[in-house]
């Protein structure tokens, strides 16, 4: 088994707010992230695909194809967007790093796994260099 990782970056804004909380609760739980105008990050996304290299090409999957999947599914949706309002998959959710990583997994898994070669192994999303989340699907 070989693990292949591709990295892309996107910049987006978000805010944390739960309408079921009082304004005080929102401020207490979410702190500065509750600012109604939002704030932004340069997100770094690492996508790892596991598989056996194809004997004819020596590739787990064609990097160009992975690049196109990431462009279409993630960057076109999230880059330079306000995540709460402009990404339908995140509508009504609190776009924490956990939630975004899980959403990215759900967007990518069928696109990568249904090709028949290679399986999505890990989605690692950095909100900052010091805060990142690994989504491992239902596996290890």
């Amino acid at each position, binding site marked *: 088994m070989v693990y292949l990782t591709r990295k892309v970056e996107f910049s987006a804004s978000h805010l944390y707010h739960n309408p079921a909380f009082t304004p005080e609760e929102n401020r207490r739980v979410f702190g500065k992230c509750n600012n109604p105008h939002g704030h932004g990050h340069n997100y770094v996304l690492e996508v790892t695909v596991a598989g056996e290299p194809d004997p004819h090409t020596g590739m787990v999957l064609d990097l160009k194809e992975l690049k196109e999947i990431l462009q279409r599914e993630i960057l076109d949706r999230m880059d330079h967007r306000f995540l709460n309002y402009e990404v339908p998959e995140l509508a009504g959710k609190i776009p924490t790093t956990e939630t975004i990583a899980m959403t990215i997994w759900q967007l990518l898994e069928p696109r990568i796994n249904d090709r028949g070669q290679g399986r999505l192994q890990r989605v690692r999303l950095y909100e900052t260099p010091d805060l990142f989340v*690994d989504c491992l699907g239902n596996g290890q």
Partner: protein
Amino acid sequence: MKLVLHRRYRFSASHRLNQPGWTREENRRVYGKCANEHGHGHNYVLDVCVTGPVDPATGMITNLADLDAYIERHVLSEFDHVFLNEQVPAFRSLVPTAENICRVLFDRLHEYPHAQLTSIGLEETGANSFEYAGEIRENV
């Protein structure tokens, strides 16, 4: 869906690698420059990895404010800008190699009440890094 949250913290500390039961020559042979009598320092980077269910009300595995406060109280307040051998009681009888620092930190952090600690990482320099997931995981 399995998610692991990583949060990185920094502390700067000095240490000396020296086994009191060994001769000066033995310590010099095993630990080299690290046995120098007055110690030396590093900028350590600690990667704390936790897992657990995502709270639907907050979108979080754990509130980072809670994690930051816990790490400040249990690690940084005691480990930052100190001489580990003399000022952290655990290292009066334990050589503060990065391996042993990992074990001591894991033992301090595995009782974090808001999420489950899965492992810790420790970078001693840009070239040396260590990971420790506790003894139970190692025996599986």
